[in-house]
């Protein structure tokens, strides 16, 4: 069978599992939310409302129906692409996600860019002299940034750069006194397209601290992965062969070892992207970044079942899509991979 046919069969198999996986995730979230203590009425009204008013609101929100009926309605809506309405304000969940997902993606992509550039630069820096000072510093950097607790790191960065030095905003996505860019929901892109430099600078200022912190925390993974894989590649036979042919060390490293060392990094990038789609919870919460993770955390606190279910299902679908894409990309780039 040809490689292409193998690939199509592999892809079909992966895609066929997606609906099953999503159904399992959706059902699990539905069940876990109902099993968890507390309910939306308590979250909405606290202890203040009389029993009759609580019962009326429970009925109004459809929470007095048997669990199986609620589950049936939920699955039926899901099959029709409907995620329901928020219990707190009746806003469609699709609109909640539509508003918050671009914020998370923008933060995630910029953070990934920062992580990749800084991480790969650090990982690459120690190659010339293994076990040298630079290599040791790169190792320490990799371990240190990976080990930093995100919440603590975010708080410290916020305290230093926003509160003490006052260089950048403490939180939020855009200044309160300016009109935010309209369009796709990606503020950088929208302000670039509209050519509004004030909006672009304001968006960048708000993005710099959360994306920088997240990028810094992720960069250690890239640094370590590249360092290890590059070392392994430099010790391999084909690099030895290249050297013996008299190629310069620069060509050996950049032309032969680096492309091979980057393949596992691509897989790591895929996993990182997938995890960032769901938002970096602690970063979003610390910087009041209105992304999906921030909204999810709020919705869990409010026991807003439809919002939690909707966000989890959409994020799970995106994560699955990204991981399939990355698998495919790696398979296409690496001829050694067999399906």
């Amino acid at each position, binding site marked *: 069978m040809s490689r292409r046919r193998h690939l199509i069969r592999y892809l079909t198999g992966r895609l066929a599992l997606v609906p099953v996986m999503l159904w399992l995730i959706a059902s699990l979230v539905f069940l876990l939310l109902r099993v968890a203590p507390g*309910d939306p009425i308590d979250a909405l009204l606290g202890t203040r409302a009389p029993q009759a008013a609580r019962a009326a609101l429970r009925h109004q929100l459809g929470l007095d129906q048997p669990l199986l009926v609620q589950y049936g309605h939920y699955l039926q809506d899901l099959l029709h692409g409907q995620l329901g309405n928020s219990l707190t304000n009746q806003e469609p969940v699709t609109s909640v996600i539509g508003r918050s997902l671009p914020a998370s993606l923008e933060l995630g992509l910029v953070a990934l860019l920062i992580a990749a550039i800084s991480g790969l630069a650090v990982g690459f820096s120690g190659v010339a002299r293994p076990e040298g000072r630079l290599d040791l510093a790169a190792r320490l950097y990799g371990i240190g940034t990976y080990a930093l607790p995100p919440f603590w790191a975010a708080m410290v960065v*916020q305290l230093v750069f926003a509160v003490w030095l006052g260089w950048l905003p403490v939180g939020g996505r855009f200044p309160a006194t300016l009109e935010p860019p309209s369009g796709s929901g990606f503020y950088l892109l929208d302000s670039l397209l509209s050519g509004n430099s004030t909006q672009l600078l304001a968006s960048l200022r708000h993005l710099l601290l959360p994306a920088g912190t997240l990028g810094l925390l992720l960069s250690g993974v890239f640094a370590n992965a590249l360092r290890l894989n590059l070392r392994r590649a430099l010790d391999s036979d084909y690099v030895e062969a290249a050297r013996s042919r008299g190629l310069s060390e620069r060509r050996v490293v950049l032309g032969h070892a680096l492309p091979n060392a980057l393949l596992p990094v691509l897989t790591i990038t895929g996993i990182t992207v997938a995890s960032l789609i769901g938002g970096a919870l602690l970063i979003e919460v610390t910087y009041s970044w*209105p992304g999906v993770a921030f909204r999810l955390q709020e919705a869990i606190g409010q026991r807003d079942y439809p919002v939690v279910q909707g966000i989890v299902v959409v994020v799970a679908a995106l994560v699955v899509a990204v991981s399939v894409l990355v698998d495919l990309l790696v398979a296409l780039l690496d001829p050694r991979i067999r399906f």
Partner: protein
Amino acid sequence: MQQRACGLGAAMLLQALLGCQPPKPIGQVVVASRGNLDSVDPVDITSFAGAQLLSAIGDPLYASDASGGLHPHLATALPILSADGLTARIPLRRGVRFHDGTPFNAAALVFSLERFRALGKQSYLLDDRITGMRVRGPYELELRLKRPYSSLAALLSSSNLTPVSPTAYRSHRRSSLRNRFVGTGPYRLVNSSPQNTTLEPFAGYWGPAARNRGIHLITLSNSTALYGALLSGEVDVLLSQGLDSDQQRALAARTDRGLLRQGIGPAVEIGYLTLLSDRAPLDQPDLRQAIALSLDRRLISERVSYGMRMPLRSLIPPPLTGALPPSWPGYNPQRARQLLQRAGYCQGRRLSLPLTVRSNVPSDRLFGLTWQAQLQRDLNDCLSLEISGVESTAAYRQLDKGVFPLILLDWAGDYPAPDVYLTPLLSCSRGIGERCLEGSSVSFGSFWTAPGLQQQLEKSEGLDGQARTRLLLEIQRRTARGGAYIPVWQVAPRAWTRPGLSTPQFDGSGRVLLQALSTHP
């Protein structure tokens, strides 16, 4: 060369980013608080942040002031009650217009109140008190009450009952309008998102014009960000909700040094302990009394909140009627020891009580730890606490199941009236002796009542003046003797402004008067 150029470019970009703070429009004020705003419709709003917004864009019939007084606002006089106290006539102000130009009148008010009764998450505010309403004249409303209610004006000062334009809400008579608001308030809503709401002064406002050129209400998710935003000048006004005690103290210290201005509102929130009175061991009144006597409120207030949560020995926060003199006994460890000894403890036998605190409320845990240490100091051989944490929504869900022998909770009335503090905690529709079987007392986890207490509560709601004060104090003395609730502290809202702004002022419900924030103090 190329590398140098790249480095120079990056440095210039960074310089532009760091040095390029967008200019703040002159006369506009940025106000920050915690807690998102999911909707601006009065029928949806249940949070403090929402009530704060409504107080700026809407107008209630009556306005409460920080000293507990009530004044006609959209009404022109206090409710005129019939002889039996079951019908109230409310004359309304003329010449008022909604933000969309629709004239305000009795028909518009009935439309708004009926809409709130049909859709409001807090519709019980009206449904508990009112059987019906009608337009008595173009500028006169008539309300029919279930039973005489002397706090009617206070109820009608609730921001959720602010009138909305019948024109704008015609197609939302049976559904909420979450991101648009058309009322009669001093500000007009320009736009609203969960994190940022913009208001501009309403040019056609009937009352005194706002003293600033607009408000931006922003929400930030954690107290460090809020604190930092005020210090760095990103925001002009900071509200204390959700701010840690340490930060509040630091802001108060800055106020003392003249770096900020601080305003303190009337206490609207009380913190209290609920004791499960119908099960052992706290079914013994002596033990409940001993616990009340063992509480060193002053020390706890100092340690938990640097004294900012003022000790409270009443279920009604001052300055409301019936709050003073305090009905609960003060700190008296000797008397507590005597009562514990009488109940068979202290002589080699120690009462170990499980205290539940809400794990997501930082001050609760601090309260638990401080009280535990204080008991170790004062009554180590008699009484000890085992602290456990439960997330608040989970705790509320289980209160009526009687699973918490001793739990710290808080309560904020929906409007400034004494009965909204007493009735929810004490009301009992069916009880035997001192055990409540059905009613609010069960929902609040105490299961306590007393013969005739319900009748006294209902009677107090219809009384006025000294007679009411006397009865409210009598109810509280009985409750204090019952010992199923122990008031701990009262929480007064605070707000800070940066230099160049006037000192924040509050209304009687603890909301900052945004229209009074002046940029030329």
